[in-house]
């Protein structure tokens, strides 16, 4: 049934439909609506889960590592500073091979105390071994949370479902909220491969010497590869039931495009409009939306981008001393292909600044009129200070 819900509620509805057993979270703007909705569902009995109101984000994830180790489906949500506080245990979750799902509402990091959207928080966690899926709208958020449990539980890795602060978390849109039975047919109860059980005692989190640590890490790397291979199959099943699919990347008008814009999150929606308008004017422009960021879909990215003349990546994030993070990854994906197109990196919308159709249009024109990239990153709309 289609309902007009907030992005945050789309997350909460998906968590309810996934029959999560334990939720553990600490409030932080702009994640709060997610935990408020979930608290309400627990209070009115529509979600039979234990909600642990812990004393920090660090403990939120620590507690869920305990919960998931007993073999129970677990969920948390956080943003910005909260995610940074969890950092140690993000590594632990993937190392312990626990399929915890987290909704991560992108928020800028302080100082410059800022609650608005910026992707640097989640991208700073790209090496923690979490699968990362970036979402564009409320429907995609709901669908992605359900897919995240399937994918994570299949390969035993945690999954971060990432959404933009306010532009997505606090925006109301019509969302198809499926029936419980329909979701059950896609997402069966969690069958853990190992668990804490007095009848079959196991030890988790042991001291590991150089003798075997490397092999353990390699198995995580293999699980990431498996996730990349399995995601399309999970989407096949999802599509059969729900008649929707997203792909690891989505390519719009890319086949004959001279210039392809690369976007993530809600900037994609605005870019769709810009690209449609430019196409109407006869411009050969395409759009590639990146959804799956970890594991990075190198082959999909290459096949979409390789035949274009120029690539323009819009990053709402920045790695100081290097550049926009998506641009770096796109460059790395293309660098071994002979004659690959040059990659232009644009920094826009940092700390919640609006990325309008004008900004995206300017990015397109700048790329079109430039012989070669002037710099690793071009900061859009900087004011004189």
């Amino acid at each position: 049934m289609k309902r007009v819900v907030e992005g945050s509620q789309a997350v909460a509805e998906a968590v309810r439909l996934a029959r999560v057993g334990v939720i553990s979270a600490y409030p932080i703007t702009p994640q709060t609506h997610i935990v408020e909705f979930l608290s309400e569902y627990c209070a009115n009995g529509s979600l039979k889960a234990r909600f642990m109101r812990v004393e920090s984000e660090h403990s939120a994830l620590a507690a869920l590592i305990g919960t998931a180790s007993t073999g129970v489906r677990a969920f948390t949500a956080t943003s910005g500073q909260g995610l940074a506080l969890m950092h140690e245990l993000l590594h632990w979750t993937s190392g312990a091979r626990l399929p915890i799902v987290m909704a991560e509402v992108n928020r800028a990091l302080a100082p410059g105390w800022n609650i608005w959207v910026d992707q640097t928080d989640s991208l700073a966690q790209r090496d923690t071994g979490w699968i990362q899926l970036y979402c564009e709208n409320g429907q995609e958020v709901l669908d992605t949370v359900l897919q995240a449990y399937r994918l994570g539980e299949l390969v035993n890795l945690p999954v971060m479902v990432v959404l933009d602060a306010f532009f997505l978390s606090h925006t109301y849109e019509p969302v198809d909220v499926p029936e419980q039975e329909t979701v059950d047919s896609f997402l069966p109860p969690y069958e853990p491969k190992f668990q804490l059980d007095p009848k079959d005692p196991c030890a988790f989190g042991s001291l590991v010497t150089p003798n075997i640590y490397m092999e353990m890490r390699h198995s995580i790397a293999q699980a990431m590869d498996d996730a990349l291979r399995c995601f399309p199959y999970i989407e096949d099943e999802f599509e059969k039931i729900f008649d929707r699919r997203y792909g690891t990347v989505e390519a719009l008008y890319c086949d004959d495009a001279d210039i392809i814009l690369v976007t993530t999150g809600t900037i994609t929606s605005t870019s769709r409009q810009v690209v449609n308008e430019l196409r109407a004017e006869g411009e050969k422009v395409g759009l590639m939306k990146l959804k799956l960021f970890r594991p990075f879909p190198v082959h999909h990215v290459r096949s979409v981008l390789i035949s274009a003349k120029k690539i323009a990546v819009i990053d709402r994030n920045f790695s100081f001393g290097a550049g926009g993070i998506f641009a770096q990854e796109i460059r790395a994906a293309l660098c071994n292909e002979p004659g690959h197109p040059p990659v232009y990196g644009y920094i826009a919308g940092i700390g919640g600044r609006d990325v309008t159709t004008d900004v995206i249009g300017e990015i397109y024109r700048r790329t079109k009129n430039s012989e070669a990239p002037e710099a690793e990153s071009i900061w859009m709309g900087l004011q004189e200070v």
Partner: protein
Amino acid sequence: MNIIENFDLYAPRLVDKKEYLCSGHRACQGCGEVLGLRLMCKALGPDVVIANATGCMEIISSMYPSTAWEVPWIHVAFENAAAVGSGVEAGLKALRRKGKIADRDVKVVGVAGDGGTMDIGLQALSGAMERGHDMLFVCLDNEAYMNTGIQRSSGTPMGASTTTSPAGKVSSGQKTWKKNVPEIMVAHGVSYVATACPSYPLDFINKVKKAMKVKGPSYIHCFTVCPTGWRSPSEMTIKLGRLVVETGIFPLYEVEDGKYRMTVEVDQLRPIEDYMKPQGRYRHLTPDQIEIIQDRVYQEYNKLQDKINGLHAWSDLQYEWGLFD
């Protein structure tokens, strides 16, 4: 005849002969901490899940692929044994609710050293106790970060020399008094709080069994001798554990529902030199400095006696009881 003598006579036969923390682990000779852990496990029995903070006990019991544990055990970093324990408890409850495991009592036990309890783990411990999880938390306090090489913690006693509070020409070792975590736990309204020491094994076992029966959080602060860190002879571990109680430095007591009770009575406190002398960590202290510490020991002991004599059980403190007249 006091209660402890009764147990001395009769209880040893009732102690579980099975070992849940097996031999073959890598603890130092004379380790009081691993002895405490072993006794704790005997009292707990098989229906437990242990959430162990990083520390000596984690390192010595777990080297992959071997384990000394015969019960389910999980280690997740340093600062969060209480948070992990909370999550395990919530998970087990969810499994019972969904009918996936039998509806029987499985106790979750958080275990951490003094650093993992009193310093880096205090916030998580406070959170878990406040939330009221059905969990026993045991602090195995050997008064410094022994696993990393004898660095001071907030459990290190005044005057003790450690590698980060060394005694030197212008320093006399640790400059602060030991943090009183049992009191912090009582202030959380935890209905069973106790101190213990493996040198009094039956007292300790009895307390663990009592804590297990509590539906909700309980806390035991277990004093454990560390010959390596204290530079004391390993064969003196049990003796030092007795002396710390006999000098009144670490009295053995329990707080049930707010009511304090000494579980090991000491008729006449021995001078603290008896306890400090065999330990290298106190060797540099002058008689004046020892006197200052001695005064503090008396003061703390009297504070405890005051509570034992004066405080009522919380359940007695009803409006009708008359305090409000």
